[in-house]
């Protein structure tokens, strides 16, 4: 099999084939090297994997992921903007300072993603209309007191942040064809995790709505939120289901190093698919 001829033929149809393959600039090097060590029979599957990488993530699919992220950032930005602006909601001092910082980060993410989407040739989605009661526009959903009851506000904030972390994590693999976009997404992802940790710490100190001994990390699929409203609890639980996973990279970690299931589920955060995230945020989007 003459690989060079194959690439020459592809190049006639798609002059950008090398650019597509080689956002990592190692394609030919890799193949020249791989050809030495791979059995001839293995080469077609390696070639297939390379084409999937080159053509499986078009700029359209990257824009799609970024617009999904932008929708979530709009949700968070609007939530904190309204919360910080609400009268008699957030205690003065460290609480309002922290929530203002988080608000500013979410607004920065909105602006950054809009720029990135435009640069990728896409059109940023418009800011949706939100119903933070979780009532799909009725204003009477299970979180109707989010901007008048500080404990409810923090519970929703925690859920949004932990969901955001899981949402970005679930999309990383869909951004692999563009190193710059992937790294930026990871840089947003870890900021969301910092936010999540702090909101959880605030809830630990506030001790409200079942926070109990909540920690900055997620134990099994526990929400550490008890609203007293079954519909609200069920809505929140969706953001934590799957966090109890104990198989990592094909390795059973349920009692890794004898540390038990709690530690080993805390040590690994889990992703959510785009569909799972959209289902979670749907009640908040009119």
């Amino acid at each position, binding site marked *: 099999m003459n690989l060079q001829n194959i690439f020459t033929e592809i190049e006639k149809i798609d002059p950008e084939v090398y650019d597509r393959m080689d956002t990592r600039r190692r394609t030919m090097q890799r193949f020249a090297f791989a050809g030495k060590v791979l059995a001839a029979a293995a080469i077609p599957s390696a070639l297939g994997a390379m084409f999937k990488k080159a053509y499986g993530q078009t700029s359209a699919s990257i824009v799609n992921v970024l617009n999904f992220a932008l929708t979530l950032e709009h949700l968070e930005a609007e939530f904190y903007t309204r919360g910080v602006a609400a009268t008699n909601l957030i205690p003065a001092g460290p609480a309002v300072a922290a929530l203002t910082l988080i608000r500013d980060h979410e607004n920065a993410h909105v602006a950054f993603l809009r720029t990135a989407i435009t640069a990728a040739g896409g059109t940023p989605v418009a800011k949706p209309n939100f119903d933070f009661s979780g009532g799909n526009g009725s204003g009477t959903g299970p979180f109707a007191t989010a901007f008048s009851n500080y404990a409810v506000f923090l519970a929703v904030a925690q859920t949004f942040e932990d969901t955001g972390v899981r949402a970005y994590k679930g999309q990383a693999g869909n951004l692999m064809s563009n190193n710059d976009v992937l790294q930026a997404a990871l840089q947003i992802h870890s*900021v969301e995790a910092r936010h999540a940790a*702090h909101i959880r710490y605030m809830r630990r100190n506030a001790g409200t709505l079942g926070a109990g001994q909540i920690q900055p990390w997620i134990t099994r699929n526990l929400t550490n939120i008890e609203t007293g409203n079954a519909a609200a609890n069920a809505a929140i639980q969706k953001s934590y289901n799957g966090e109890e996973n104990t198989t990592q990279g094909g390795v059973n970690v349920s009692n890794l190093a004898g540390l038990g299931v709690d530690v080993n589920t805390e040590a690994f*955060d889990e992703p959510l698919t785009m569909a799972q995230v959209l289902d979670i945020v749907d009640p908040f989007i009119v």
Partner: protein
Amino acid sequence: MDTQQSEAAVPAQGAKAMNRRRFLQFGGATAAAAFVISSCSREDDGGGVSTEGINLGSGDTGVLNYAYALEQLEAAFYTQVMNTPFSGMTALESEFLRDIRDHEVAHREFFKTALGSAAIQDLPVNFGSVNFSSRDSVLQTARTFEDLGVAAYNGAGKLLTSADFLLLAGKIVSVEARHAATIRDLISNGSFADLNSLTALGAKPANGLDAALPPADVLAAASPFLRVRLNASNLPTS
């Protein structure tokens, strides 16, 4: 007192070899894995000590060994923190630091198990610059490690070719970010995401972006805490 002894890499055999095979197959492209394995064994199995330092290896295996090295460093640090707690450690501090220790040990053991015979050796550490009886010294060092860990994983994601390994790195980095935020809040409540203090690590505050650094920069910052030199020259660079 934790003693991270230097020892030669264990030869591939039995369960460990099985673990590595399963893990690398899990990593997706069997063809790519085959070439990674070949490249490692062609060199020094990624675990030998040479005058050039400990070779992390190449390809995805090299990136995973890079992460494994950082997790070893963190696990060793927090193990000592909890073995010799600073005076006046509050119940909350003890609870959080114990959990963070456990998470880092879990990360270390995960990489060790998953990499099997491709794993680098246990790394001897040097915490001579840390005063473990001082809360300030311990928490400042912890902050350095956690922020550096976040920067390392954020910078390494694009170096991986397997989407499965990228997801695994993602599962770990957000836990490191939770640690970083927690340690920062213990030092100064509200500093959990002070991106202005992270620009030297690649953060872009105006865009709300966290730290991200290439391996060379991370290892330069980590090297004073290690008694051996890590050779990252075979890691991918893009």
